[in-house]
């Protein structure tokens, strides 16, 4: 390829941000000074495309936006054509290609916050800071639903800072930087202790949440004292095939939404003759109303590190990517710390625990794109491409990250492997734990752990409800509204009720919530988050939103027919799950709640 640049130069600060990530440039070809040797060496030919996203982050984190000079410098360093890098940078909503202030406030306007008065916060911020666009933005779900309404300030600098406002209210100290000296190394300013998100914290009988709030998430010793790393030892006893057998026998299915049997995925990957194999932990968690993975990562980060090590051991992966959404500064910091200490103590790297296992984890931050949680879009994002889903087949187990066999698993799915190995498949299956993210009109919102089989009513008895419950949104924006509280919270039970467990969202709607606005927000979410690749979703989400706007002013049969026809086509003909499920929640609200009757 013939790289051509337009002559924009990076500022010293931009250059330094990129060099801090990639090291100093080796020659004039990639942006360094010209030396004698440059006339005799050819330009490095192979691209380092997969470093594109981290490099864009490096500049955006330090400067707050990405100028043409900075983009060109990144392209020189990585051998990436500028048009393509521009296409990638403009795909992500956390990057700005125009100058903007260092501190940017993201105000959540999504479902749980909307149900909890997020509109007031939004209005207040607008009154003080003017229309959204530069110093503040309306944001999709920030994953802080248990403390809704929420806002998050991100401030560029060295180091960059983050401040959580949840619940956000009049005390929102707009524009003032985070207190001096607080760095997001372990704690993000303003964030409540993670245990606050787990009303059951410290209770007996918890499995997945047992360490959240009781064990120091920054201490590997505490983790080990609380039973950490016994599962990995057990895995070594069983051998890779034995681990897969246990996981198969446990009946574990994925918790990321698609409910695919995990053991089968692992087995299929382990058997692939093509090497290397890759492991990807999907911690993108951007489904509105979902925050369970965040709570695990913040409260028990070593559990995820251990679980990934076991998954890698079973499926023959030497490298794992932990892809975490860009709006999770505290979870990111805690995982960075956990990975670094595990590596320092011989629990990652070469020859783990002296058993000859080589495995390491690279943390990758997303940059504001729900679609990157889709299992093939995540590969493109890691590879430095636009986060557009690939068409399947081929499936990831055959051709995934870098075209190689890949296991993709959700955070909660992986963490379940620990009790499977600690207790044995049968004992685990007898009391299989499931996490639910409860928000909205409840007394004690947060992450709850139940064993499969409990009903929605039993869950709401634990959380308490406020006001008169009108409906429950199960499974998030891609899920469905239900009114029957006796639905068993199992994959099968919800399916029979025409709903889905999805990512474990339980958003309780009381009769004060404006349903038409809520549906509009769902439509707006999918329109914003569509990657734009296929026509049914790219245009269909826009047409649905337009029709809902009309319907919320005046009910018309034509618009209802239009919604249905477009929805069915999106379900039938879209490339990926985003377009295929975008119409579910709205359809269920029309059919079951009679919103436009």
């Amino acid at each position, binding site marked *: *390829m*013939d*790289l*051509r640049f*337009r002559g924009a130069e990076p500022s010293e600060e931009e250059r330094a941000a990129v060099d801090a990530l990639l090291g100093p440039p080796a020659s004039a070809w990639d942006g360094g000074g010209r030396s004698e040797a440059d006339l005799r060496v050819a330009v490095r030919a192979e691209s380092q495309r997969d470093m594109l996203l981290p490099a864009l982050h490096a500049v955006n984190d330090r400067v707050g936006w990405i100028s*043409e000079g900075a*983009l060109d410098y990144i392209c020189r360093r990585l051998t990436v*054509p*500028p*048009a*393509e*890098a*521009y*296409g990638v940078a*403009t*795909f992500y*909503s956390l990057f700005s*290609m125009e100058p903007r202030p260092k501190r940017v406030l993201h105000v959540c306007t999504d479902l749980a916050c909307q149900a909890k008065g997020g509109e007031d916060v939004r209005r207040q911020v607008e009154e003080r800071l003017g229309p959204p666009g530069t110093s503040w933005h309306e944001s999709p779900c920030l994953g802080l639903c248990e403390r809704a309404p929420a806002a998050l300030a991100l401030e560029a600098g060295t180091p960059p800072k983050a401040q959580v406002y949840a619940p956000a209210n009049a005390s929102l100290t707009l524009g003032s930087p985070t207190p001096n000296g607080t760095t997001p190394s372990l704690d993000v300013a303003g964030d409540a202790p993670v245990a606050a998100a787990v009303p059951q914290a410290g209770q007996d009988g918890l499995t997945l949440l047992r360490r959240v709030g009781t064990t120091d998430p920054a201490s590997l010793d505490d983790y080990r004292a609380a039973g950490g790393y016994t599962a990995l030892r057990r895995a070594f006893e069983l051998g890779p095939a034995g681990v897969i057998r246990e996981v198969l026998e446990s009946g574990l299915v994925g918790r990321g939404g698609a409910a695919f049997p995990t053991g089968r995925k692992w087995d299929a990957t382990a058997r692939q003759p093509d090497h290397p194999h890759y492991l990807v932990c999907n911690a993108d968690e951007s489904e509105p109303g979902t925050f369970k993975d965040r709570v695990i990562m913040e409260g028990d980060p070593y559990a995820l590190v251990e679980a990934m090590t076991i998954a890698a051991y079973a499926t023959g992966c030497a490298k794992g990517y932990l892809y975490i959404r860009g709006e999770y500064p505290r979870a990111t910091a805690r995982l960075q710390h956990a990975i670094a200490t595990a590596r320092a103590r011989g629990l990652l790297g070469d020859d783990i625990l002296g058993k000859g296992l080589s495995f390491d984890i690279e943390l990758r931050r997303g940059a504001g*794109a729900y679609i990157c949680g889709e299992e093939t879009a995540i590969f493109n994002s890691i590879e430095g491409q*636009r986060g557009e889903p690939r*068409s399947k*087949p081929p499936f990831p187990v055959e051709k995934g990250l870098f075209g190689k066999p890949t296991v993709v698993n959700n955070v909660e799915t992986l963490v379940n492997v620990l009790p499977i190995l600690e207790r044995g498949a049968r004992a685990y299956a007898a009391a299989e734990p499931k996490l639910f993210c409860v928000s909205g009109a409840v007394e004690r919102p947060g992450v709850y752990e139940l064993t499969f089989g409990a009903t929605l009513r039993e869950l709401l008895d634990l959380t308490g409800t406020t006001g008169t419950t009108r409906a429950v949104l199960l499974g998030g924006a891609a899920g469905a509204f239900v009114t029957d509280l006796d639905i068993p919270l199992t994959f099968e039970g919800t399916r029979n009720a025409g709903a889905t467990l999805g990512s474990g969202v339980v958003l309780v709607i009381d009769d004060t919530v404006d349903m038409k606005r809520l549906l509009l927000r769902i439509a707006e979410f999918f*329109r*914003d*988050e*569509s*990657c*734009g*690749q*296929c*026509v*049914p979703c*790219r*245009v*269909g*989400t*826009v*047409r649905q939103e*337009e029709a809902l706007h*009309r319907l919320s002013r005046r009910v018309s049969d*034509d618009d209802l027919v*239009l919604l249905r*026809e*477009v929805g*069915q*086509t999106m*379900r*039938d*003909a*879209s*490339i990926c799950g985003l377009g*295929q499920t975008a119409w579910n929640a709205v359809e269920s609200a029309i059919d079951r709640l009679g919103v436009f009757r």
Partner: protein
Amino acid sequence: MIPLQPPRRLIDVQIDGEDVRVPEGSTILDACHAAGKDIPTLCYGDTLTPKNACRVCVVEVEGARTLAPACSRKAEAGMKVGTDTERARQSRKVVLELLGSSVDLSTTPRAAEWTEEYGADPARFGDDAATVEQPAKVDNDLYVRDYSKCILCYKCVDACGDQWQNTFAIAVAGRGFDATISTEFEAPLTDSACVYCGNCVEVCPTGALSFKTEFDMRAEGTWDESRQSETTTVCSYCGVGCNLTLHVQDNKIVKVSSPHDNPVTKGNLCVKGRFGYGYV
């Protein structure tokens, strides 16, 4: 010399109840063609890896949860495919409506025919339906980018990038409905990496990319394909010997294309062959 290909196994598939035999590795679209079916396609390109983004070619595969893009889904032995089922037709209709309501399809070959065939009514979304309308980009003398007509099929990007030209002057930027084909920082083409090979123009299925001559003549109302003749000849610039097809109207060359079935160039040319016809 053309190397012998290893013999390919044949597989049986059923298209609309009719058995057809196609070589292993064929797509459903290949099988449909073998069965004599006419499936609409827009983003499919005979010289490019299918991107299956437009979804007008969807068919119903028995047992599958969703419809399948015929252009890229591999045919499998025993597959039962319905090309003309209610569900497939309905999806194509709505997709044509979605496209027709957001993009100017006036220069897209067969768009009008399909719109009629499937009973699509793009106007049903109302006058306020969002479109991709924007001024045409006329920033050089050779070709024009009129993205009001762009269906975002990715063909130009693939042709410019790793599939043919390896120039990477253009890419998709932005996301969702706002996604567009763009140079870096939306720079004019003259400032970009473009080498004016015109291979993107060659593959564009909608006329969003067109020769400046064609664009100007359309604006004047003098473009008339019925008065044009096509002559395929050999490019006289260098020794490679690419095939050129000269499109001539009223004794003037109005554009140059290149046969896609040429085993060497597959429709691709360089700036001289494509645009350097002034001397003829």
